[in-house]
């Protein structure tokens, strides 16, 4: 007698086929989710990295600031720089128009995180300035 029944083997294979089909369907769903998650994670990581290096980098911020403050027009205005743990304060009690224009132009055109700003006109040619930059 045929001990192994081919129909039973076919039934077993069909069951296996269905089992793996369900597993495959689950795995494909997982793959789509994982791809989506990877894409989102990459996008967040790139944005976060760019914003961090723009606003959170102390060394980079100070380097750029020093370059601006060392410009002769600004140096002449005697702008003080007070570096603290999470911020730097630039202050000049009296700064002339040209120096102020140059300084503000540079500060605003760079990606500094200006947390507070105070420019007060003293007379037609001078003003006082206090700028706080955070990182």
């Amino acid at each position, binding site marked *: 007698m*045929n001990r192994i029944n081919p129909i039973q083997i076919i039934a077993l294979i069909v069951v296996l086929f269905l089992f793996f089909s369900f597993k495959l369907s689950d795995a494909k769903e997982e793959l789509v989710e994982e791809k989506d998650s*990877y894409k989102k994670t990459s996008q967040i990581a790139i944005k976060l990295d760019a914003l961090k290096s723009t606003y959170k980098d102390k060394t980079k911020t100070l380097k750029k600031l020093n370059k601006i403050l060392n410009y002769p027009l600004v140096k002449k205005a005697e702008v003080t720089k007070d570096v603290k743990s999470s911020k730097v304060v630039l202050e000049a009690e009296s700064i002339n128009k040209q120096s102020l224009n140059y300084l503000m132009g540079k500060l605003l055109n760079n990606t500094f995180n200006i947390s507070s700003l105070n420019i007060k006109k003293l007379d037609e040619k001078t003003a006082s300035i206090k700028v706080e930059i955070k990182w």
Partner: protein
Amino acid sequence: MFSKFDNKIDTIFLDIESNNFNTTDKVNIILSPSLYWVKKIKLPVKSVREVKPLLKSIFEDILPDGVYSYDVYKSYDDFFVFAYEDKKILELIEQKGLNPSQVNHIYFAQSELANISGAMKINKTQSIYVKDGIVVLLPCCWIKESGQLHLGDLKLSKNHIDIKQYNHIVDEKTLYTLLGVSMLFTFLVLFEYIITVKNVDKITKMKDEVFQTYSLKPTMMQNKSMLKQYEKINTKQTNLRTYIASVLSLKLPTDVTLTLLKSNSKKLTALFNGVDKKAYSSIKKQFKDKHIDLSTSLKNDTLSVEFKL
């Protein structure tokens, strides 16, 4: 018709006229000539393997309608070819009180009883007899029997057959084709499953690498919250620059001067001195044209403009 073959397995002779077999032990079955068709032929081939493809054509036009299986064995120069109906044999086995799972091997009377001398009685009405090398079934009265058939003394050959239980529903070829196709599909699905799982692992590893490369926080919730915080800073800084640019680009009347520009984390304030109603309207209009959201207040001749960052 039931006798001991050896210590373990009994041998029985199966015929339509056989009595019921009351046993639950394993048995070997010898098929009566009434349950198969046999031909003794000489063919210009040497091996049984070469004869097998010809079996169906050998019995063509001889067999009544039915689903047949075929078998062959060689004895000296002759080939003994057989045709039998699996379903008919299977039904008879069950009809005679046996379970198909009890059956060890099934043999043809031709292969096992070709050496008997004279006629042997197999039941009350029938005998078997060998004529020209072929085992035939005869009614008892046609020939004088030399005795009763004793299967206990018989040494069985290797020429046994397999009964296919579903041969009458689907032929063997179709069955194996189905089996092959279903296996192929199952393997394809299994293969695709393995590939997909590997891809999932690969992407998971790539994601981990992103976490390491960009020194991200362990959870996405923390990272999203950080990103939101930085985006808020970025928006404020962009707004600050836009509003300062809009203040500095104002066309102010001759007597009006900008005296103060002040900002904190929430707002930017600009103070203008020497502002009369006409100048106030002009300044307001210029901001309106730039679609900038602001609040203004005029006290004496001092105009305060506030921008929300």
